[in-house]
């Protein structure tokens, strides 16, 4: 599905795909010892999701080093992470600094959503069945690691930016970033197991730029 740029926006639109040419390591299968009714008897952990035909990588975070960093002024938007069937949905989330991050659970078991930046806790809250969701505004850009201590196989990530030029790749590896100012930019791709990759791109004043970024 080709992505179309939004008309009327200022700046150009950067579209592209992140692909993986190597061999995908086999997934890890873990036996669930807690709450198998909700979580299943076993879990298949595959952080590197590659689309079979496009070779696109899902859940990579693409961003452009922002020149005009700006805090978010629109505080009505909330980004949410939902605990569902003992997994974080979405598994990888990108967020603008200044936006509240909400964590909630749909499962009938206890989860604790434990989010860290480096060694510092951002949030560690218990989500009991039928309990309240919890929201907290993200104030610092960077990588946030999400885990549930009650179910060790539950892992996720949030990447926070102090500018609006970022996107998370979809199932086929596609992404789209709108309103990119003209000029040469450094595009950064981050994936939880593959790490970070940089790519130079020159953006015209108006129109689309299409790129393909390859791992490794």
């Amino acid at each position, binding site marked *: 599905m080709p992505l179309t740029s939004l008309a009327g926006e200022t700046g150009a639109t950067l579209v592209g795909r992140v692909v993986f040419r190597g061999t995908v390591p086999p997934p890890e299968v873990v036996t669930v*010892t*807690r709450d198998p009714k909700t979580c299943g008897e076993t879990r298949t952990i595959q952080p590197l999701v590659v689309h079979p035909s496009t070779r696109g990588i899902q859940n990579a975070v693409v961003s452009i080093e922002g020149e005009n960093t700006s805090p978010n002024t629109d505080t009505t938007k909330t980004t949410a992470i939902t605990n569902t069937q003992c997994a974080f949905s979405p598994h990888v989330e990108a967020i603008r600094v200044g936006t509240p991050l909400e964590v909630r659970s749909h499962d009938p*078991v*206890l989860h*604790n959503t*434990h*989010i*860290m930046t*480096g*060694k*510092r*806790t*951002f*949030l*560690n*809250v*218990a*989500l*009991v069945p039928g*309990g*309240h*969701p*919890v929201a*907290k505004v993200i104030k610092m850009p960077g990588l946030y690691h999400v885990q549930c*201590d*009650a179910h*060790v196989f539950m892992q996720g990530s949030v990447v926070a930016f102090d500018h609006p030029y970022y996107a998370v790749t979809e199932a086929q590896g596609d992404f789209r970033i709108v309103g990119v100012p003209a000029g040469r930019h450094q595009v950064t791709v981050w994936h939880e197991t593959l790490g970070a990759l940089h790519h130079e791109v020159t953006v015209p004043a108006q129109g689309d730029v299409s790129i393909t970024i390859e791992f490794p």
Partner: protein
Amino acid sequence: MAMRRRLMTLSATILAIGLAATTVLAVKPEGNRATRENGRVIYERSCLFCHGAEGKGDGPAGWFIGRYEAPHPRDFTSEGFKLRSTESGSLPTDQDLFRTVTRGIPGYMPSFAGLTETERWQVIAYVKSFNPAFQTETPAPLLLGGPAPLASPTSIETGRALYVRFECQACHGIDGRGDGPVSEAGDLKDASGLRIFATDLTRPLSFKNGSSPQDLVRTLMTGLDGTPMPSYAAQLTGKEDEAWYLAQYLLSLSSGSFP
């Protein structure tokens, strides 16, 4: 056995009263350069061996504290804090730090009540200078409910039901002995990736955050950052009584009988 337990609770209560007395505060010096400089001198005599010259928790005696397991001395430069009155993820207030230095941390850090109150404030000012976040963030204490209701068999029974509903037993075990399946499996890790175990709740004297009902309510509301122990604030805000009941139940685990 019951006799010994009663004695322990009694001494816990005495301890709590003793500590309450020490938190009457002297005039807190201004957080200026001179205060920090005085604090540095105290830090280098008293804290450096565990917390390290640069506050990274890597002092020459630090590794031996937990060895291959949690905890190692706090890394003031990058870690969060366990013992707070503030919401999960926030820095502690100055009062929180003062309480930690005064009481110490059972098992791991001795009480520095032997420093004068002024000296304690000075060393705190210095400790805060290790992390620039103390300049930009303004930690605010959570409101920890109204007056404590009296404990009764029913309140303790309600507390027990909450303990089960909140699935504390996942980590702490159904009898509170710290032997819940998640902890027993050895899966729990602290912020430095060191193995950590859920606290044995039948030993209140080992509680780092204190073991008075007020202390326990604070622990439940704030969680212990850097450990798996989560904040239950979202579940307990507006239901202060439930927090008290849960605390009363936790204390009943060690007293062996209803008070």
